[in-house]
C-alpha cells in the first residue's frame, strides 16, 4: 500500500536546512540570508526569533564596552547524572566545545546608551538555555558585583526551564537567583528583565519575572507550564495567542513590548528616568 504512505512521507520532508529559515510562528519560509538580514525577525508576522548571546550583546551594549566576567564559573555534576543518551558531563562538555560558551548565560560589565550596567544574556543554544548551578551562580555573582559597584542589572532571559541533569540543585537556583535579586532591589538598584523567546518553566518562575520592569519583544513565548501539558490537563484547546507577549501584556504581566531595534534605547531611557 505504498501510495497511502507516499503522501505522509512527502509532508515529512523538511526544506533543505542549508537554504531556508522557517518562522516557528507563522511557518513561512525565507532564505536564510533574508532571515539574518532582518535580525532574525520574521518579515511576515513580526515574530522575534532567537539570537545568540553574543549577537544580542553586540546589539545592546555600546560598542567595545562589554567585558565578560565569571567565564570560569561553569556546570557542576554532583549527581553524576546519566540518562539514555549517556553522561551529562559528556553532553555539556560537548556543548562547551561546540558553542564556545561555558554556560547558558553570558555575563559581563557593559555600557548601554552610556549607562554602566551588569549585563547578562542567556543563550538558548546552550542546552536550551537551561538553568543549571553555573547559570545560577553567575547570576548571583552578578547581583553581588552590581551591589558592590552600584550598577543596575539587565538580564535577557531565554530558557526552556531548569536543567534536569543537575536535579534538585537546578531547582535551588530558582531560589538562589531570586534571593540575590531581592537583595539587589533592597539596595536601591534597578533590575530590568528582558524576556526573550522562549522564557518558560523555572526561569520564568524565578528571576525573569522579577524585574522592576518586565520587558519583551513582539510575539515572544512566555509561560510557566508547556501548552501541551496544560491542554492535556484541562482537556480544552487554548487560544492561539496563549502565552504570547501580547497575551501576557493583556493579562497584566508585561510592562512593555519593545521592537528589537528599540530595546537598547528603551533600556537606556528607563535607566535615565531612574537616575542611573
Amino acid at each position: 500500500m505504498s501510495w497511502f504512505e507516499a503522501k505522509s512521507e512527502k509532508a515529512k520532508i523538511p526544506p533543505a536546512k542549508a537554504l531556508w529559515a522557517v518562522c516557528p510562528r507563522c511557518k513561512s519560509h525565507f532564505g536564510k540570508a533574508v532571515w539574518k538580514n532582518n535580525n532574525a525577525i520574521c518579515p511576515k508576522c513580526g515574530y522575534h526569533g532567537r539570537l545568540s548571546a553574543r549577537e544580542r550583546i553586540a546589539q545592546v551594549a555600546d560598542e567595545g564596552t562589554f567585558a565578560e566576567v565569571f567565564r570560569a564559573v561553569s556546570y557542576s555534576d554532583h549527581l553524576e547524572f546519566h540518562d539514555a543518551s549517556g553522561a551529562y558531563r559528556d553532553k555539556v562538555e560537548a556543548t562547551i566545545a561546540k558553542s564556545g560558551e561555558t554556560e547558558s548565560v553570558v555575563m559581563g560589565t557593559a555600557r548601554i546608551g552610556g549607562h554602566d550596567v551588569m549585563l547578562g544574556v542567556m543563550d538558548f543554544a546552550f542546552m536550551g538555555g537551561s538553568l543549571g548551578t553555573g547559570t545560577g551562580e553567575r547570576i548571583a555573582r552578578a547581583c553581588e558585583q552590581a551591589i558592590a559597584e552600584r550598577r543596575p542589572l539587565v538580564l535577557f532571559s531565554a530558557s526552556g526551564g531548569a536543567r534536569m541533569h543537575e536535579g534538585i540543585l537546578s531547582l535551588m537556583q530558582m531560589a538562589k537567583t531570586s534571593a540575590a535579586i531581592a537583595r539587589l532591589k533592597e539596595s536601591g538598584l534597578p533590575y530590568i528583565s528582558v524576556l526573550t523567546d522562549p522564557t518558560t518553566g523555572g526561569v520564568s518562575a524565578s528571576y525573569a519575572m522579577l524585574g522592576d520592569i518586565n520587558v519583551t519583544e513582539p510575539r515572544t513565548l512566555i509561560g510557566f507550564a508547556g501548552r501541551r501539558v496544560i491542554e492535556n490537563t484541562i482537556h480544552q484547546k487554548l487560544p492561539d495567542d496563549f502565552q504570547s507577549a501580547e497575551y501576557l501584556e493583556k493579562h497584566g504581566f508585561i510592562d512593555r513590548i519593545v521592537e528589537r531595534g528599540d530595546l537598547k534605547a528603551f533600556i537606556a531611557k528607563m535607566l535615565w528616568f531612574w537616575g542611573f
Partner: protein
Amino acid sequence: MAKTAMDCVKLARDAKRPHFRDFIDLICSDFEELHGDRLVNDDRALVGGFAVIRAGDKPSEKDVRALVLGHNKGATVEENMSANFGMANPDGYRKAMRLAKLAEKFRLPVVTFVDTPGAYPGREAEERGQAEAIAKSLEFFSRLRTPIVVVVTGEGGSGGALAIAVGDRILMMENAVYSVISPEGCAGILWRDGAKAPEAAEALKITAGDLLRLGAVDEVVKEPAGGAQRNHRAAANAVRKAILAALGDLAKVPVDELVERRYAKIRSYGNFY
C-alpha cells in the same frame, strides 16, 4: 531490603500518608484558617492559618504560636477534587505571602508543609501569572523577617513546592521525595519512555538521603517502620519534635542575622565554595 527511589515516590504519593490537615490535627491546637489572596480567589490547594504547635498533649510553655501553611492533599477523591490535588494556582502563593506578612508583623514564625505534585498547569493559572507568583514567593520568603521552618512531608513537586520551601531550616520526612521534575516527566524527555520512571528517579537523586547529601535539606525526619501511613501519630510526633527543636534554635537568632544566614544558605546551593 533497600528502598529504591521509586519505592519512596510510591510512599510519598500514598493516599493514606498523613497530609497537611492530618498534621494540623495531630501537632497543633487552636488552628484558625484564613482565606483568600484579596485579589481574585481563595485557593483550596494551599491552606494557611494561625495555630499553636503543641509540645505535648497538655498545654505547656514550650508550645509555639505560628503561622502554618501547606499544600492541601485530600484523603478521598472528593476532597482531592475540591483541593485540586494539592496543586496551587497563583492565588495560593499570593495567599501564602499575604499571611506570612502577618506572621512577620506579629513576630510569629512560619512553618510550611510541602506536599504537591506541582503548581497547577491550567489556563487561569497562566493568565493570573503562575510564573510571577512563584518567582515573587521565592523573592518574598528569602527576605521575610521571621523564622521559617519547612517540612517536605510528601511530594516536593518542583517550583510549586519551592515557592513555600524557602526557609531557615529545611526538614524532609524519610520517605518524602523532592525533585525538579517528576520521574515520569524526566523519563519521557530524557529516556523518551515514561516507563523508565524508576531509572529517572534514581538518576535524579530525589530521596531524603540524597537531598541531605546534596545540601538541599538540613535534616531527615525518620518515619515509623513501613512508612508514615502505618502510624500517623508516631509520624506526626517525629515531625513535631523536629519543628520545635528548629524553632527553638531559630528563636535565639536576631532577625537581621537570621535573614543574612538564610541568604548565605540559599546562596550556597550548588556548592561553588
